[in-house]
């Protein structure tokens, strides 16, 4: 599992880690840095997509595939449909709200960037009719919501296990744990980045980096929400 954690860390923060490495000497234009980080994120997300594409195709193949019953020599289906715990809906709601707060945090950071004059046209912002930059701790709120989502997922796994569905019980449960865990680990990478970004906020340094980090994490976060909805649809089709 540590392997996958590393992937997540890379997916979410690797781009940004690198930026931390350079910032002390950084004189590259802010917009160029933001563009490069966003480009890196798109490329990284392509890699993540390929992982989920493989899992999805394995899921579809495995679900539709009959297997040989050695006794009778005929092909049989062994897929037991999994009753998804309804608590998943609560988790989904939490994640949807978090993507909203994440977007607010991103815009907040962008305004902050404008105010301090580090970036001009690079960051898309709406009119400054929102509260001013130091208002709501959107970033921290998002991190908390993200952790709540993971805690909720934990409860879902416990519930499934209690009803006798373990990882190896049936392909349907194997895939459920596989997809949700992989998603969870990716999200955890995002949460760690958010915590790092919040910490940077308090230290009042790396203002430029922080804006880039928040921006990238936000897009990453939105993607993770989208991915979750996709996974839910994929699992729901099982019925």
């Amino acid at each position: 599992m540590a392997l996958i954690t590393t992937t997540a860390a890379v997916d979410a923060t690797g781009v940004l880690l690198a930026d931390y490495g350079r910032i002390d000497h950084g004189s590259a234009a802010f917009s160029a840095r933001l563009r490069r980080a966003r480009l890196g994120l798109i490329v990284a997300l392509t890699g993540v997509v390929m992982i989920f594409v493989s899992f999805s195709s394995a899921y579809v193949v495995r679900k539709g595939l009959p297997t040989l019953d050695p006794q009778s020599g005929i092909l049989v289906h062994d897929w037991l449909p999994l009753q998804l715990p309804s608590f998943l809906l609560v988790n989904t709601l939490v994640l949807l709200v978090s993507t909203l707060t994440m977007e607010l945090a991103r815009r907040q950071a962008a305004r902050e960037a404008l105010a301090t004059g580090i970036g001009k046209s690079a960051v898309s912002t709406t009119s400054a009719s929102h509260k001013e930059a130091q208002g709501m701790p959107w970033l921290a709120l998002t991190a908390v919501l993200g952790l709540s989502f993971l805690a909720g997922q934990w409860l879902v796994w416990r519930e499934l296990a209690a009803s006798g569905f373990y990882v190896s019980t049936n392909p349907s449960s194997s895939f459920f744990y596989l997809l949700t865990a992989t998603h969870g680990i990716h999200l955890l990478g995002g949460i760690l980045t958010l915590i790092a970004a919040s910490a940077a906020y308090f230290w009042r340094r790396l203002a430029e980096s922080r804006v880039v980090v928040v921006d990238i994490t936000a897009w990453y976060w939105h993607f993770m929400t989208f991915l979750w909805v996709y996974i839910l649809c994929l699992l729901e089709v099982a019925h």
Partner: protein
Amino acid sequence: MATGEFAAHAAHAHAAPTSWIRKYVFSLDHKVIGMQYYFLALTAVFVGMILSLLMRIHLIWPSATLPFWGEIKPETYLSLLTMHGTIMVFFVLTTAPQGGFGNYFLPIQIGAPDMAFPVLNMLSFWVTALAFIVMLAAFFVVGGAPLHGWTGYPPLSALQSAGPGEGLGADLWVISIALFCLGALMSALNFITTTLDMRAKGMTMMRMPLTCWSWFITAILGLLAFGVLLSAGILLLLDRNAGTSFYVPLVTINGQLAGHKGGSPLLWQHLFWFFGHPEVYIAILPAMGLCSQLLSVFSRKPIFGYKAMVYAMLSIGFLGFMVWGHHMFMSGMSPYTAFAFSIMTMAIGVPSAIKTFNWLGTIWRGRIRFTSPMLFALGFVSLFVSGGISGPFLAQPVLDIQLHDTYFVVGHFHLIMGVASIFGIFAATYYWFPKMFGRMMNESLARWHFFISLIGTYAIFMPMHYLGMAGHLRRYSQLTELNYLHGLVPLQTFMTYAAFVTIAGQFIFLFNLFWSMKFGKKASDNPWEATTIEWTTTTPPPHDNFGGHMPVVNNGPYEYSVPGAPRDYVMQTDPPLAKAH
């Protein structure tokens, strides 16, 4: 994305480190990381080569007792071939051309001070190095290294009791590959972003040297392929250790029910080869790019059909994702699907043929200088043709019935993916050594090395085609059991002797490499009179590659023998050529 737009990276992004650790071990400098990758691959290639020698010895003298090793048992032979294949494919053919030379020269050739994400770059190397250590550790655990071949087909690779080495050894093997995938993904991310976003002013995509194109396309292939292998590996680990049944159906092993049911062994093959076929191009594309470059440089002639070369590489990369099924003609896949894969596979031969024509077109009416890198580039073309020509046999399911899993396949992929790529690596070493170490390599030693390698590898791998036609199956640790193999033993013996000579020849290279670092003739900034940007900077390049000023590109990468020019080459940074073409 950022074509023509000059991203302001006037100063180098990170200052030159002063401590030894930051300078040589955990360095952020793409040049140091490139060399780290190179020396990792160099270590790996000698390990892999020795393993192959042990295999060849075992085939001819099955009961020989070897110093430091002891007797080779049938299962040891299978462990050797598994580790030989895995190490060579991942830690040599994927690592040296892309991680090594790509890291070192991609930024310099496009006029960038470094890779886009230096920390990530460092991380990708160290993850790869860790993966190599984990891989080697498989030799030293109970049961030894796995015996399931580099393709690791389950159920053999998924069941702990399927044979010696399928216990902890096989787990380490899967974990190592998963780690390698992570490193390769990080590296691909860096290469793609760097190529798209960090090109110097004037360096349009169509002015990039073909080497850069090949690294760029290879990175895209890696990005799309390694994620799939990682996923496949995770499923295999779960099947092995968590009792799931992704790949394993109901089977009995050693008279015991294995406890799985319903899984599909073919699922692994699909996922593995979806990665595995692009992997072939990951290994060969950088060599193609480099040899195109060298043929132009040393024929003193522009590359024949630059655009055709770029489009050929792009279409090879694109088609490479649609042909994986040709590894599975005999696997139980639908014969209709097999036929479709067959047509796609034959189609991929077309861009490969275009490249060969263009290489011949490049040296045609040139003025060839027989330097050591040029010799290896010419050897590459010869090997590429020889290895490629057996492809259309294997791509047709009708002929694959007879040839599948025989030595014909082994000969085919060793010539084209193994030896041809390694000739690319040798060519790159001889070509860029002066820039990397500030000295020239010894030319006479290099020529000995070249002729021994060329003749030797042909002597090893060409006879494999004859063996394959006669029905000699691969991965047979002894030739005693099947009667029809007995007549083929003399050919096997010949190949083993050829292997001894060829491997001895590689030590000439090793000696030359280290000797020249210390005692080679001092190299000038542009010893080959080449046009690309790495030859404009000092030897070796400074920390930020260009000593504070950023290059501006005015010309294409292959302007040799331009009529009316003062010398027979016009560098990319020279004032623009008057005429447009």
